[in-house]
C-alpha cells in the first residue's frame, strides 16, 4: 500500500524536476487529446514544440514571435508571483493589463501628433499608473474591509473589458478611421511606437523591461529582507505578524508590483505588437501568466523559462492551427492541463510516497 508522508523539509531536487515532468506528462496527455480530435499526436506535439524553433520554413518568422509573446507573460507573471508567494491572489492581471494599455494610449493620443522625446516615457508612466490604480481597488478593499481580493480582482476584469469596448468604440476611436472601431495605430506613429530594437529578434522595450523585472525580482527575493517577509507572510501569517510584517503593507506591495507590471505589459503591447486599442485587444495574457508563474515555481528564473515555453506553445498552437487544423481552443485546454499536472506533481517536493507493507496485526 502506498502512503503519502510529509518530508521533513522540501526537496530541492523535486522542486526543480516537477515542472519538467509536468511538461512531459502534458505532452503525453495532450497527444491523447489531439488523437481524440483525429490528429496525429506525434506530429501535433512536434509542430507545437519543435517547429517554431527548428523548422526552417517557419522559424525565421516564429522565433522572434516567441520573445514578443513571452515579454508580457513574463512581466505579468513576475508581478503575480510576488503575491502568490505571500498568499495574495491577484487574478485580475488581465484587467490591469487592459487599463495600463488604455491609460498609456490615452496619454499618447492626447498629444498626437506632437513629436517629443518624452512622450513615450510619459506613456510608459501612464501605463504603469493605469495598471496600478486598477490593482489598488482590490488591494484597498482587502485592507480596509477584508473583501476577498480573488473575487474583486477577477470581477474587475469584466469591468475593464467594458471600459476597453467603450474606449475602442467611442472615447479613443480614431477620428480618421472612417467610423471603424479602434484607436489610431500607435505603432505607426514613431514618437509613441514600441518597435523591435534589433531587427528580427522580437526584442522590444517590453521584453527588455521583462528581463529587468526578472533580475530585480531575483535580487529582491534572494537578497532583500522584503523577499523574506513576502515568503513569511505566505507560509506562516502569524509568524509574519510576530516578526513585525504588517499584513496591509504586504497586500499593498504585492498589488502595487503586480498592477504596475501588468499595466506596463499592456502599454508595451498596445504601442507595439497590437498597435492600437481595439475591442479584442486583450488575448488572455493576464490569465496565462498565472500558469507561467506556477510553472516557474514562483521563482524569477523559473518564470523566465516558463514564459518562453508558454510563448512557444502559443506560437506552436497557431502553427498547428494553420498546418493541422488543430482548433485554437485546444491549445488553451493544453495550457490548462499543464497547470493541472504541475499542481498534481507539486506534492512530490513536499511529500514522498512510502511503501507500507502490512504485517499481521
Amino acid at each position: 500500500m502506498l502512503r503519502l508522508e510529509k518530508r521533513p523539509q522540501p526537496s530541492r531536487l523535486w522542486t526543480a524536476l516537477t515542472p519538467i515532468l509536468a511538461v512531459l506528462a502534458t505532452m503525453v496527455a495532450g497527444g491523447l487529446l489531439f488523437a481524440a480530435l483525429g490528429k496525429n499526436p506525434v506530429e501535433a506535439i512536434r509542430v507545437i514544440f519543435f517547429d517554431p524553433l527548428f523548422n526552417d520554413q517557419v522559424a525565421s518568422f516564429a522565433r522572434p514571435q516567441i520573445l514578443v509573446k513571452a515579454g508580457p507573460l513574463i512581466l505579468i507573471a513576475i508581478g503575480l508571483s510576488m503575491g502568490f508567494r505571500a498568499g495574495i491572489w491577484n487574478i485580475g492581471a488581465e484587467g490591469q493589463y487592459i487599463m495600463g494599455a488604455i491609460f498609456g494610449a490615452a496619454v499618447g493620443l492626447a498629444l498626437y501628433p506632437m513629436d517629443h522625446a518624452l512622450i513615450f516615457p510619459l506613456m510608459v508612466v501612464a501605463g504603469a499608473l493605469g495598471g496600478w490604480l486598477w490593482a489598488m481597488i482590490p488591494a484597498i478593499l482587502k485592507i480596509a474591509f477584508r473583501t476577498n481580493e480573488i473575487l474583486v480582482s477577477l470581477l474587475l476584469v469584466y469591468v475593464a473589458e467594458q471600459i476597453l469596448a467603450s474606449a475602442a468604440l467611442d472615447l479613443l476611436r480614431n477620428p480618421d478611421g472612417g467610423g471603424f472601431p479602434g484607436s489610431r495605430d500607435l505603432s505607426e506613429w514613431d514618437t509613441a511606437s514600441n518597435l523591435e530594437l534589433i531587427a528580427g529578434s522580437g526584442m522590444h522595450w517590453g521584453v527588455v523591461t521583462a528581463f529587468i523585472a526578472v533580475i530585480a525580482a531575483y535580487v529582491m527575493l534572494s537578497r532583500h529582507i522584503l523577499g523574506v517577509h513576502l515568503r513569511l507572510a505566505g507560509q506562516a501569517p502569524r509568524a509574519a505578524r510576530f516578526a513585525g510584517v504588517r499584513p496591509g503593507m504586504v497586500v499593498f506591495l504585492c498589488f502595487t508590483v503586480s498592477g504596475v507590471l501588468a499595466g506596463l505589459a499592456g502599454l508595451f503591447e498596445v504601442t507595439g505588437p497590437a498597435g492600437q486599442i481595439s475591442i479584442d485587444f486583450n488575448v488572455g495574457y493576464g490569465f496565462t501568466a498565472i500558469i507561467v508563474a506556477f510553472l516557474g515555481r514562483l521563482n524569477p528564473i523559473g518564470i523566465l523559462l516558463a514564459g518562453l515555453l508558454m510563448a512557444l506553445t502559443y506560437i506552436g498552437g497557431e502553427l498547428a492551427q494553420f498546418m493541422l487544423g488543430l482548433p485554437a481552443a485546444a491549445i488553451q485546454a493544453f495550457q490548462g492541463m499543464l497547470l493541472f499536472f504541475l499542481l498534481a506533481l507539486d506534492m512530490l517536493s513536499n511529500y514522498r510516497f512510502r511503501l507500507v507493507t502490512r504485517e499481521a496485526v
Partner: protein
Amino acid sequence: MTSALLRLSGITKSYPGVRANDDVSFEIAPGEIHALLGENGAGKSTLVKAIYGLVKPDAGQMTLNGERYVPAEPRAARAAGVAMVFQHFSLFEALSVAENVSLGMEDPPPRRRLAARIREVSQAYGLPLEPDRLVGDLSVGGRQRVEIIRCLLQNPRLLIMDEPTSVLTPQEVDTLFTTLRKLSAECTAILYISHKLEEIRALCDAATILRHGKVVGECVPAARSAREMAEMMVGTDLTPPERSETRPGAVMLEARALTLPAATQFATPLREVSFAVRTGEILGIGGVAGNGQDELMAVLTGETRAPAGTLLLGGEDIALAGPSDRRAMGLRTAPEERLGHAAAPDMSLTENMLLTSGAAEGLLSRGFVRWAAAREAAEKVIETFDVRTPGPAVAARALSGGNLQKFVVGREVVQSPPVFVVNQPTWGVDAAAAATIRQALMTLAATGSAVVVVSQDLDELLEIATWFAAMNEGTLSVPRRVATLSLEEIGLMLGGGERPGNGPEAPPDATPPRTQAAEAARAQA
C-alpha cells in the same frame, strides 16, 4: 490471567526515523484506573491512538475481554466499548453541545431524547452542561465535560484520557477525579495518560512507564514516591535549577489597567490587566488555558495594539508600537506556538533568525540580508542552547519540539534583552530541554533582565518565578510573592476567587464559591 479487560502484547509502531512504540505489553483489569506514564515523545500518544483505532501498529496483538481486538478505525473501537477523551479536544466550536455529542456516537438518539440523556448523565456524574450551547462559548473545562459525556453516553468498558488535567484548575481536577473514581467503581476501566506524578499517585491503581517507546517499568503508584517514578520516566537523576538571589531593580515593563475588547466571538476580552516587572525578577502568569493569556501575549508582542498609555517599557509608552519597534527598544518575546508563530515551519533556521533579528543585530544592511552573518547567528544559538540539528540550513519543521523550543527561546535570550516575555516555554518539551530553558530564563533574570513567563504549568512557575499572578476570564489577579503562597491560595487565584473587580458577569461554572480563605488572601494582598 484471563480477567484482563485489555491486553497488549508486543505492540510496535515505527515512523521514519523514530520507533514510537517498541514491543509494548501490559494489561488493564476491568474497573482499574491504569496510568500510562512518560515524558513527551515517549510514545504514549501513539500507543493510545493504536488502541483507539487511529493508528495501525506494525506488529503486536491486542485482546479485549479475551477476544482478538483489531480496531480498523475509531468507529470499531467505540463499538467494542473503547472511548477516548483527547488532549486537544476533537470538538466543533460552531456546533452545539448536543451536536458534538451526537457526532461522537454510533447510533445517536433523536435530538430531544439526546438532550435529555445529556442532562441526565451530566447530573449523575457532576458534570454540568447545557445541550443547546455552542461549544465555542464554553470554557476549556466545559469543553472537556462535553468530551467526557460524549464518551459516557456510550457506556464504555474502557475510557482513555489523554492528559486530562493539563487544562484544569486544581478544584476542577478534584471534581474530575471524583467522576473517574465513580466510573471505576461502576467497573469502567480507565487508561490515564499523564506526566503529573502526584496526580497519578492519588488516582491510579497501577502504572506502566514508557521511555523512548519502550516499557521501562510497572508499579503501584501509591507505593512509590514521585521522585522514584520520575527517575524511571526520565532515566536520569533530576536536578532542579539553581535559584540565585538577585536584588530587584527598576520597573521595566508595566501594564496599567489594560483593557481590550474581544476580537472575535470566541476570544477573551482583557479587563483592566495591571502588573509591573522589575529587573532581576520573573513574573509568572498562570491560569487555565483560554482565560486571556493568548490575548495578553499578543498585546505584549505588539501583534495587537493596546490603548495608548496602558503599556510601558522603561517608562515609555509602547502600547501603539509594532513588534519590530518594541524589539529595537529592548522587549523581546517568544510566543507559545513554535511552528507557524515563533518560527516559520518551511524556512531554514538561518531564515528564521531574520524574524526577530535585523539591522541592529548586524543581519541586515540597507535592507539586504547578510546571509553569512545570519548563519553565524543561527549557529551561535544552536551551540549555546544545545539545539540538536544537522545545521542551520535545516527547515524549522524538521526539528523536534524540544529542540525548536530551545531555538526560539535561545534566539531571543542570546541577545540578553532588557525585557523578555515568553508563553509556555516548556510546553511539550522533554525534561532535559525543559530544564535547559528554565535555567536560561533564571540566568537571564539574574543578569538583570525583567522576565515574564506565561505558563499553564504551575510547578514550573513556582519553581522559577519571583511573583505569581493568575489570569481568569481576562482579568489578572494582583501578583503575589511566590515564596509566601500556599497551593490552596493559588487554586483560588486560578479560579478567579481573588481578582480585582470580581464582577457578577462571570459565569457560575468558572467561579468557585468564595471562601473565607479567599477573603483572607485578599486582605493580605
